[in-house]
């Protein structure tokens, strides 16, 4: 079981590496969106500090959404998804392997890039630390919940828009706790409550999302 997880993870990371431009595109999107706001809002320090957590988090949501299309659609088109459905190994473990690879190639780079982008919003250092921590806990949830949406909309026309309509509402709690953690830290309340809640959401979605996405894949594959 662990072996098939490892196989799928290696395979998807290798594929992501061979198609580096896709990974770079969603990172570039994150970079652009979050850099446009300071230009639009203006150089007021106080304003920028207040809006920074929300902007960085929303940009991270959208960048993740952009890369969700890669998760199952390509495998569906070339028939490798069929082979996964026909594997004797549990489908949820295969899905977890794919989601892990998705997070490593799409989520983790966001976590690493966000502190740099936070500098242009003049966030204090401790808030930047909390931002990175909240993204570290939150982006795996985005990949996990996104997998359900990507699986449900597989093979549908206009799947890209549909996946956004389906998944963005599910992202709301993550956004509230994630951006809330940074704001709470900045206002001196301390971020630990928010981060704990975020960790709880991660634990729950880690347990349930692979299973739900596997069910959705079986439904939409034929």
């Amino acid at each position, binding site marked *: 079981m662990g072996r098939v997880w490892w196989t799928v993870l290696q395979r998807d990371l*290798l*594929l992501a590496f061979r198609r580096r431009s896709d990974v770079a595109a969603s990172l570039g999107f994150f970079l652009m969106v979050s850099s446009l706001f300071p230009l639009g809002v203006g150089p007021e320090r106080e304003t920028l500090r207040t809006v920074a957590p929300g902007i960085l988090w929303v940009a991270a949501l959208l960048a993740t959404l952009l890369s969700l299309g890669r998760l199952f659609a390509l495998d569906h088109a070339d*028939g490798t998804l*069929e*082979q996964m*459905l*026909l*594997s*004797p190994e549990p489908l949820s473990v295969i899905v977890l392997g794919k989601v892990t690879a998705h997070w490593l190639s799409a989520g983790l780079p966001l976590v690493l890039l966000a502190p740099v982008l936070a500098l242009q919003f003049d966030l204090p250092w401790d808030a930047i630390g909390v931002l990175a921590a909240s993204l570290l806990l939150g982006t795996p949830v985005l990949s996990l919940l996104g997998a359900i949406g990507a699986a449900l909309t597989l093979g549908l026309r206009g799947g890209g828009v549909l996946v956004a309509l389906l998944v963005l509402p599910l992202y709301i709690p993550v956004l509230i706790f994630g951006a809330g953690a940074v704001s709470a830290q900045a206002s001196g309340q301390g971020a630990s409550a928010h981060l704990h809640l975020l960790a709880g959401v991660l634990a729950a979605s880690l347990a349930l999302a692979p299973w739900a996405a596997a069910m959705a894949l079986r439904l939409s594959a*034929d």
Partner: protein
Amino acid sequence: MTLQAIGLVGGRGPHARAHPLFSDLDVSVGEGESLRVTGRNGSGKSTLLRTLCGLIEPLAGELLWRGRPVRRDGTALRSELLYIGHALGLKDDLSALENLRVAQALAGRPCSEAQAAQALQALGLGPRTAAAPARTLSQGQKRRAVLARLALPVDLGAPGLLVLDEPFNALDTASVAQLTALLAQRLAQGAMLIYTTHQDQSVPARQAQTWHLGAAEQAASAGLVA
């Protein structure tokens, strides 16, 4: 070891229930036996094959693998299955060798790199071709790269049920003969084979059955002509 279909009804699309592609299909395939599914384009050959390996739920009827319903426990069937469909299941960005190893690992029968290279060589894909991205291969080469799964050593756990959708498509004459020999060898070892083909090519088996799809539709159109 048998695969048995009892009163199987299957179809695709929104009107599947009103107009199934096949209905009341009773068939039983045992060790060393083959079932060839024939019929015109769109008569439901691929749907039948996909239903028989559990990829599509039948609309009615029961599918039994070793006497146990597949509906309840598909893992037993899947652990012995080798399905090659219309979509070959090759990743364009991976080499034939990497594709073969991933496919085998997913099927629960992982193979070493040397074994994979040997199997690809047996199907006429040399080391250089096997290491190139699959996107650079020709249609026939792609198909051979997938069919190499049949040429892997038996001690890895040979698949007992081979479901092949148009395996002879895009293959040259020599490859067709080679594949036929390979399939005959697998059948002699006790595998069962379910396949479709438009070519005039059949695989020698202990017992070879043929199931023709679309008979009702043909009768109807014949009546129209008369």
